[in-house]
């Protein structure tokens, strides 16, 4: 036998063929030939390797170096580097999605390392078109054992004992199915293999057939022996030409070798099989429909009983097993039931192959032991969610499966758990969805699929799915009505319980499962006419606007920047946002996360452009508002929410009095955000503009102390509570009371009051939110020598904005990840050190982040003289909420009545902002202010029997110009003051865009608002 110094295994699955593996192979052979290496290096085309999204993939043995996305053009360099010079070609290696680190060998790539290959054991290793290679890997040994040493009963017992269950989805014990068929009387029996894989996004069976066809044949012969069958059919969809091609080769080779046909291995046992090509009806995966189809009739399911084990194909006893089930059988017989049952859970044994697709970094086939947590599959094997988005749910079981949401990432994936969570195992399609997927839209999509694929035989499946789809489509189109959810639930239930076959019985699953986990999204669509995931385009002009809590007209002001009409742009900003120059600096810009430009290159820098307008246009003059109404409104708290509400109400003609306990208005804008992010003059100007509308501002007035609550209730028609969350949460660990252990809110307030608080030399900030970063950077500016942020998870879990974290790091702030304080130590009541503990990440919590778990004996001490706690904020009530009739939640926040955004249980008392939501963003507070004003106004008008308020708005013509072509251009970067300079004082760090930069950036907008008829 010829010995080669190296083997190149190039993937020849359908996926890699599509991405160019055949061309690459050709180029490789030519290149090796050219360099005279053909005699030393052997090229083998294998079946699907599994890492399909990275195709074409190739593995070089004996080293096991794996190259990804190898195109024919890469071959000369690859051969030169790897085979001539003996160096690994780094460029084509796998890169870890988060770190970008290159990983050379297959064994080290987590995608492969964490899998347990049984069904796929030969994938990417053997040439599927050579029976010798299969035999060399123990192929047909199980069959030989079954035929020569075992009785049918013994085979069935072995399969029963192994705990193998049907991998087609229903999970019926395979051995039991065989037993029924073997006990069924009849001379003619059939063994059928279901290779009619039809779930969108599922390709497990195809891959097995392409990579290891003999494993399926071997399984079928064993099954035939077990039940006494002599004829089999593989029902394979015609859309799988490569699988059929390789199956045909395998069948021919097996027959030639005496492993199939008559007198197999001289045992006298006959078994022949044929491939039956299906025409691609989804329902033909259902066993009775499949049999009807083989009989040459239209593939429609038949009622059961009679069950196929009694009367199946042509009314003869038959068994139907899935490709994956059969591919397991040879190994079970060869290695024994105990070996097989060695992995898995109590009721679900062995491994399961999943086709991992969707918004996950590593797309491909994975085989894991039953019971592997979903999070492990998605994050550890799948490499997490692409583009830094958040995981939302995984659709398991194809279009008739269900969604498993973020709070169940720890769920061990086996038949029982998956069913308990409202999904089905299905054939193993696992579609990962990120936060940009709308639950209603997904349910609609899957329902549409089932509706189209219904064979039409039974009423509930054919007509019911249509009706459900109509409702789902209406909801997605903004035409959802009250009662729709109840109808969906009722119909889903009827269809589930009356449909003839599995297709109909499971078709409502996606609806039921999304209703179970994402009912709020349905309600948002129906009641608020809003798609929280910003998918259903009927609700919005553009995704950015819909993502914005105050629905800012982003495309319009971007268009006006492009037209250099900045004053008009400013007017557009002020229509919805009283604080555009503030938001241009500190907004967390949810708009950008949904920007469609990001599908081309990067999102448009909307926040920076907003600031550009306010930096460069004169602020439009505001007239004093006309007092047209007799009602007086009290707004308590002059933060962004209170100011917004006061402004809106004043513009609607109300007399508004604004109360605040501090000398100046602004709330968290002023006391929470340091000046280097938000210069005071900017803040002052926007606030004074609002107050200039004619709002009475009573500063230094604490409600409950300076003014009695009851007094307010009498003097004012309505009260809006926008009191925020004004106190830092305490850590609760030992030494929390030491001097030098401060709350971030209190610390920042001191700073912003201009009191120049003393900071320590070595400061630790505990927490990972924006307040933590603000406190850390402020401390640095106030003279701290070292500032360390202690955070208990990883960077990607930090709630703070990414650019803020970057800026902090640039300024020299150290972040200690996976650590948390356990006690603060000091002497004489003064802090001296913070003792921390290392954390490891354990299971996933309800938010989808991994829970930090303390590591034993991992304490370490940080030598600090100040600790700033930024681990949460609490509200302080100025009065007894209970006596005032206002509901308070478990989190000590005000409870808003159902169906309203701001109304409390007390009449004409409204609340909004952080005191309702907990610490939130500026724009969130502004939104609450708008809602409060609108609801207060509506309540008063309703009480008076007046018509609803109709706003009067200035019409601003928006240029409707769209670029015909889009070229990839990087997003603009905002210039900043150099680090060494800026940390000296509180000057503004970000400098604003130049006109050129702004025009270029505004031109990147795709103008999703323009509809082309």
């Amino acid at each position: 036998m010829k010995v080669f110094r190296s083997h190149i295994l190039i993937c020849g699955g359908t996926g890699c063929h599509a991405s160019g593996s055949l061309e690459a192979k050709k180029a490789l052979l030519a290149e090796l030939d050219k360099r005279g290496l053909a005699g030393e290096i052997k090229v083998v085309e294998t079946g699907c390797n599994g890492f399909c999204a990275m195709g074409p993939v190739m593995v070089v043995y004996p080293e096991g170096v794996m190259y990804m996305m190898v195109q024919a053009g890469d071959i000369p360099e690859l051969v030169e580097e790897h085979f001539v010079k003996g160096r690994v070609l780094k460029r084509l290696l796998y890169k870890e999605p988060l770190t970008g680190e290159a990983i050379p060998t297959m064994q080290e790539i987590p995608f492969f390392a964490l899998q347990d290959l049984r069904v796929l054991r030969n994938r990417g290793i053997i040439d599927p078109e050579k029976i010798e290679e299969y035999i060399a890997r123990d192929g047909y040994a199980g069959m030989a054992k079954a035929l020569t040493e075992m009785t049918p009963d013994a085979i069935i017992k072995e399969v029963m004992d192994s705990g193998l269950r049907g991998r087609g989805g229903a999970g019926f014990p395979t051995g039991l199915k065989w037993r029924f068929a073997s006990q069924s009387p009849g001379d003619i029996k059939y063994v059928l293999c279901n290779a009619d894989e039809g779930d969108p996004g599922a390709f497990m069976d195809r891959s097995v057939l392409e990579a290891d066809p003999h494993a399926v044949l071997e399984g079928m012969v064993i099954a035939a022996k077990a039940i006494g069958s002599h004829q089999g059919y593989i029902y394979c969809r015609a859309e799988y030409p490569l699988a059929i091609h390789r199956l045909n080769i395998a069948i021919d080779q097996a027959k030639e070798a005496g492993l199939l046909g008559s007198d197999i291995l001289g045992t006298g046992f006959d078994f022949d099989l044929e491939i039956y090509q299906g025409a691609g009806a989804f329902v033909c995966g259902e066993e009775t429909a499949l049999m009807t189809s083989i009989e040459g009739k239209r593939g429609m399911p038949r009622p059961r009983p009679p069950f196929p084990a009694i009367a199946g194909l042509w009314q003869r006893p038959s068994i139907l097993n899935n490709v994956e089930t059969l591919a397991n059988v040879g190994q079970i017989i060869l290695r024994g039931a105990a070996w097989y049952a060695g992995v898995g859970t109590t009721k679900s044994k062995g491994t399961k192959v999943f086709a991992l697709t969707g918004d996950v970094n590593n797309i491909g086939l994975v085989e894991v032991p039953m019971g592997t947590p979903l999070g492990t599959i998605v994050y550890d094997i799948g490499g997490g969610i692409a583009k830094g988005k958040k995981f939302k749910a995984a659709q398991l079981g194809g279009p008739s499966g269900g969604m498993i949401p973020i709070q169940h990432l720890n769920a061990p994936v086996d038949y029982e758990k998956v069913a308990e969570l409202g999904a089905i195992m299905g054939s193993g399609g696992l579609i990962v969805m990120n936060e940009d997927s709308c639950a209603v839209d997904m349910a609609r999509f899957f329902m549409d699929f089932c509706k189209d694929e219904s064979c039409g035989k039974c009423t509930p499946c054919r007509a019911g799915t249509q009706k459900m789809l109509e409702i789902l489509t209406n909801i997605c189109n903004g035409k959802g009505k009250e009662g729709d959810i109840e109808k969906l639930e009722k119909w889903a239930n009827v269809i589930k319980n009356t449909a003839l076959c599995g297709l109909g019985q499971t078709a409502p699953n996606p609806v039921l499962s999304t209703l179970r986990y994402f009912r709020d999204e349905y309600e948002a669509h129906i009641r608020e006419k809003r798609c929280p995931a910003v998918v259903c385009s009927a609700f919005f002009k553009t995704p950015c606007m819909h993502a914005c809590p105050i629905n800012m007209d982003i495309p319009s002001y971007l268009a006006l920047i492009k037209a250099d009409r900045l004053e008009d742009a400013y007017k557009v900003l002020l229509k919805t946002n009283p604080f555009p120059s503030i938001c241009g600096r500190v907004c967390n810009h949810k708009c950008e996360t949904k920007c469609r430009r990001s599908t081309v290159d990067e999102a448009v820098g909307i926040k920076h452009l907003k600031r550009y307008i306010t930096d460069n246009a004169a602020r439009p003059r505001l007239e004093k508002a006309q007092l047209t109404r007799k009602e007086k409104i009290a707004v308590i708290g002059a933060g962004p929410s209170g100011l917004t509400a006061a402004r809106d109400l004043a513009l609607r003609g109300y007399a508004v009095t604004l109360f605040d306990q501090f000398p100046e208005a602004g709330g968290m804008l002023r006391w929470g955000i340091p000046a280097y992010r938000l210069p005071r003059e900017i803040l002052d100007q926007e606030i004074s503009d609002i107050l200039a509308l004619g709002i009475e501002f009573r500063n230094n007035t604490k409600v409950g102390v300076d003014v009695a609550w009851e007094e307010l209730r009498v003097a004012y028609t309505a009260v809006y509570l926008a009191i925020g969350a004004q106190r830092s949460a305490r850590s609760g660990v030992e030494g929390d009371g030491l001097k030098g252990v401060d709350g971030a809110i209190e610390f920042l307030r001191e700073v912003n009051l201009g009191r120049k608080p003393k900071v320590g030399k070595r400061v630790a900030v505990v927490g990972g939110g924006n307040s933590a970063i603000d406190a850390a950077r402020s401390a640095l500016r106030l003279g701290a020598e070292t500032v360390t942020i202690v955070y208990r998870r990883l960077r990607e879990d930090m709630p703070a904005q990414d650019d803020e974290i970057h800026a902090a790091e640039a300024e020299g702030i150290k972040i200690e990840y996976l650590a948390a304080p356990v006690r603060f130590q000091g002497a004489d009541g003064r802090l001296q050190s913070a003792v921390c503990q290392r954390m490891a990440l354990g299971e996933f919590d309800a938010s989808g982040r991994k829970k930090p778990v303390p590591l034993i004996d991992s304490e370490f001490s940080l030598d600090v003289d100040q600790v700033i706690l930024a681990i949460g904020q609490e509200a302080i009530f100025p009065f007894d909420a209970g006596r005032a009739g206002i509901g308070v939640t478990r989190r000590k926040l005000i409870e808003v009545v159902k169906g309203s955004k701001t109304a409390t249980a007390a009449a004409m008392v409204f609340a909004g902002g952080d005191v309702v939501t907990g610490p939130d963003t500026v724009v969130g507070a502004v939104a609450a202010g708008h809602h409060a004003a609108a609801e207060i106004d509506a309540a008063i008008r309703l009480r008076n029997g007046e018509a609803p308020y109709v706003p009067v708005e200035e019409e601003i013509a928006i240029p409707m110009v769209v670029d015909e072509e889009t070229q990839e251009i990087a997003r603009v970067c905002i210039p900043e003051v150099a680090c060494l300079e800026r940390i000296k004082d509180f000057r503004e760090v970000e400098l604003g865009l130049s006109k050129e930069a702004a025009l270029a950036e505004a031109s990147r907008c795709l103008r999703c608002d323009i509809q082309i008829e």
Partner: protein
Amino acid sequence: METKVNKVKLTIDGKEVLVDEGVTILEAARQNGIKIPTLCQHEALSNWGGCRMCVVEVDGSPKLVASCVMPVRNGMGVVTTNDYILECRRTMLEFIFAERNHYCMFCPQSGDCELQNLAYELQMDHLTVTFSFNKFPTDVTNEYMVIDHNRCILCGRCVRACKEIVGASVLNFQNRGPKNLIGMDLNQSREQSTCHGDGVCMQVCPTGAMVNRYRSHYAVKGHSKDWQPLETVCSQCGLLCPTVNFVKDNNLIKIEGRLTRTNGRPDRGQLCRKGRFEALKNAGIRLDSPMVRSGSGTWKTATWDDILKLVSGKLNDVKKKEGGEAIFGLASSALSNEELVLFRDFMTQGCSAAYVDTFDGTHFRAVSDAAKEGKEAFREASWKMIPEADMVILLGEDASQSQPMISTLLGKGFLERGQKVAVLGKTDPVPPYTPYYLPVVDSALPLLVGALKTGLKGSGDGGKLPAKARLDADAVRVFHEIVKAFSESANPLFIVGEKLAGLEDPAFLADIVSLAKQKGLCPDKSSRLIILKPRGNSAGAWKLGISSSKKISGKSKWKAGLVLLGEPDDSYLAALEGLKGGGFIAAISPYFPESLSDKVDALIPKPAWLEEEGTFTSVDGHETAYKQKSLRAPAGVMDSWEIFKKLAERVGFKPGYRSWKDLSKKAEHEIKK
């Protein structure tokens, strides 16, 4: 020997019942008087389990089962109705109503619709589901039936009926999901498809998706509960298919076959397009009072007295002056045995007419000559033998025109049992299924039969095919295959078309008779031969000796003649041409076809087909059936009994029967002979 059926005990709605093992829950419930609503289920068809209207709860499981397909099990606990089951049924019914266009008030089926009835039954008086407003095509290409897919509920009854009863499988489902349609062949229109137009699909359709184009308006037909169903037989082609004629206010609304899973007949109650639709057609001008032609050729109404006096007077005169030799009688063999006997006796005994014949006498003479040639009396095989034959050789006939049911049986025989069907003749009766088909003109058939006979004598290749037959190579191959198949056949049957019998070549018919004899006799000792006959009661007429062995020709000097007609169709009246020759001819007829106006001198109205009762003899002469009267004749029309009684009185003839009953007995007695 009776096979012992095990009994199964189960509980339905709290009632313990004992039923045969293997029956469905639905059957068990029905046997015990418990009603479960159904749509796709039909007693004559296999169970389908599609509409899910019959869902019931078994052993308290929330998953309901379709009772029409779920076999009973010992100890099973079934609940057929509770709030949840009703909710499911109503929801599904609403789904069906909303899926397509089910606006009863605009539907021709309203008043005769199972879907509508079910909605009433389940008290579904409004929809909580919005309509889908899908648009589907309507097929109006067929003369008798409309397919409106917008009213289809996809229950599949028509598909099963077409396959199981008709054996045609023209109908099937096509497309998936909401686009699902009942298609004909590969998406053809009814006319372009291979459909026979039997209308069984229409009969089993529970909604207005397949509608009869006749009498389908509510204003005409009203509600089905007001109809009178009359169980009778169809006498149009001699197969005597049992029918139910629905009558309202002396209007025929529709004719249906008596469909069953097994009714002892191979057709299972199918009916053909003739039996189902012909009687609904507007048949032509009815004759409702006696009429006389004046010298100038115009027709005038006459009183009964006048007409009877005129006709009997003329017949009497001629009889007295010229004798019976100058009198002829001609009758349609579509009439009942009783009427034929009345006519025959009146003519021969009352008028001493020398010549009494039927319009298809030519055929009779050819066949009887052939039978004599064979030297042995032959008795035709029963048409019910067709399904049992392993090979059928059809000669010179488009059975789909004359006896459509026979062509259906052949198609079914081929599809279901692999029956070998050879067709020699111009038209192919069952187009897609005929493996042995020789499309030759009728005149070439005698040559082929001769060759078949020599071929079978074992001259090897059977190859001496007469050049005159002008067969091409393909046809020669087919011919040889037929020879081979016939020689291998154990139980063949010849079917000879009426046109062929009319060829007047006794030698050729005798060849067929002797060919049929080669394989012996049928189990009932009849010959392996069926001769299709032109009219509904030709066999009766032949047996009653009305079809004369002597031919009436225009050469004789006729002075008077009486013609008895029954059908609106006047194609055969050409036979009257040349018989007139100056004499007097009177016709007794329900209709007044234009072609009669210059051939006869007096017209006596009589009741039409559905207005008369009487016995008919099947095409093969094997059985006789009684046809009920479905409609009343128009006022002022005397029935045949009265007419002949009065005519007989006037010519002084006293027949031997005093009542219709007597007459029936006599006819029956003669037929049996």
